[in-house]
């Protein structure tokens, strides 16, 4: 799954932080209600961020340097 899809995954997680506890779990007054739900969201946010950033490398951002070169080329023209 691409980074872009994982980013969309984060937006869905954020939206569910509002919808699920307020609309669906309002009557569940136990640990397995909103508390567990937000715990799971927290863990999924960590997983999503690991996946979004997995192409971050120790070299200078290849994407940025490529565009840098393009910019220089453009200026020379």
């Amino acid at each position, binding site marked *: 799954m691409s980074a872009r899809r994982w980013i969309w995954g984060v937006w869905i997680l954020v939206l569910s932080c509002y919808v699920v506890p307020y609309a669906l779990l309002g009557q569940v007054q136990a640990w397995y209600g909103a508390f567990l739900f937000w*715990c799971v969201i927290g863990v999924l946010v960590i997983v999503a961020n690991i996946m979004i*950033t997995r192409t971050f490398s120790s070299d200078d951002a290849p994407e940025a340097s490529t565009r840098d070169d393009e910019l220089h080329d453009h200026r020379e023209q």
Partner: protein
Amino acid sequence: MTIELIWGAVIIYLIVGLGVAVLSRGKTTNGAGVDMSGYFLGNRQMNGFVSALSYSATTYSAFMMVGLAGLTYAGGVGAFGFEIVYFAGVSLVAIFGPKFWAVGKRFGFVTPSEMLGHRYADNKVAVVTAAASCLFLIPYAAVQLAGVGYLLAGMSGGAISFTTGVVVATLLAILFSYIAGIRSVMWTDSLQALFMIIASTLVALLVVHSLGGFAALFDTLATQHPASLSVPGPGLFSFTTFLGLTIPWFFFSLSNPQVSQRLFMPASLKAMRQMLIGFLIFGFIYTVVSVLWGFSALVAFPDLAKSDLATPTLLASEHVPPVLGVIVMVGILAAAVSTIDSIMLTLSSMLSRDVYANVATGASEAKQLKVGKWVLPIIAILAFLFAELQLSLIAVLSVAASTGLVVIVPAIIGAFYWKRGTAAGALTSIVVGGLVVIALYLSGVKPLGLPAGIWALPVSVVLFVAVSLMTRPNRESAREFMLTAGTAQTD
């Protein structure tokens, strides 16, 4: 808890912290040719592990162990949801981090406000962003200082005065940030972060154990305080309040310069990744622990007069041995100081880079650095005076800080993604948006029944877009900036 024990712990903390700060001195921050980027950004060479711990200590202030525990005590599990939405918002670092990093490296930005001034080709944008940051963050730092004053006074039963507590925190913050700039901030932050997480987790486990374990804790909550396990729960977290709190905090990682400036610093994107993931793991544990404190206090002491007393009462109770209580007190002190010193360092870099350098045009890097180092203690003294005076306006500005700073977000997102955005649009959205937030907080007015936290972002977005469309953008600076950030294509 004896006064000797409290002072002993504070002095040990001071000595160890100072030792680490002095050891952190290096060529980049204290050498002969040190410049703005060296002192304030560690020469953009910070490693991932230290960055992660420092980012955590800077983000999480004394609010967590005192305020969030209190919010959980009063409002139940909704407080946890509020923090989790903020936590999810830090994912913005994964999206915007590489872009900040790339443009920072290419154009030599030291501050996020300088970045906006360059992107919109107008120094006034940088000046106004820096001024707005000072307006909201100095009062925020002042309230943190006051929190340390209350903490030490409360835990010593008044033997240590409020003023002594505030002086101690101010001095620590000045020393930790002055000795080696960002390096001493980051290294002391790292030490403090480890201390914060270990001490708070230990106490949470101990207290939960003495209350019969996790199952017993949640069983008691379910039978005696069932509303605390759902939202809106006891009433504090109505849906509109929840929205009003969470929207500004979701954008914290972009709107608050003391953390967004960190995006210029990692040595590589790999280091940035380590910073982000390390922070998320730290933040998740710290959030759960702070919420458990609040729940534990609710079970152990259900009749407290004020929810802010949840943590002090818990620490002073038989559930926590005095030595551990004093260790956590130092942990809370560390949490406050590590936030204040980062704010002070960032604000001083903004005032010298974005205000002084724009007024005294042609000021050299060395001169800017000199001014920045002078401004640092001045900001600290200002925050100290605000903390001592305890003016109601300061309290209002502090509470409004997260909402007030969110008005900068449209200009930041627009800088990377909307080439049509203009300086006039950015200026209007920040100035008018900021004034609207202050007016709403001061008057207490809630248009359509919605709090300022909900209004701030749409108001500033509309202003940014509308005024930008009415004015002429600087296409060349937008193009150059967005090409570097990777958000525009070459023609």
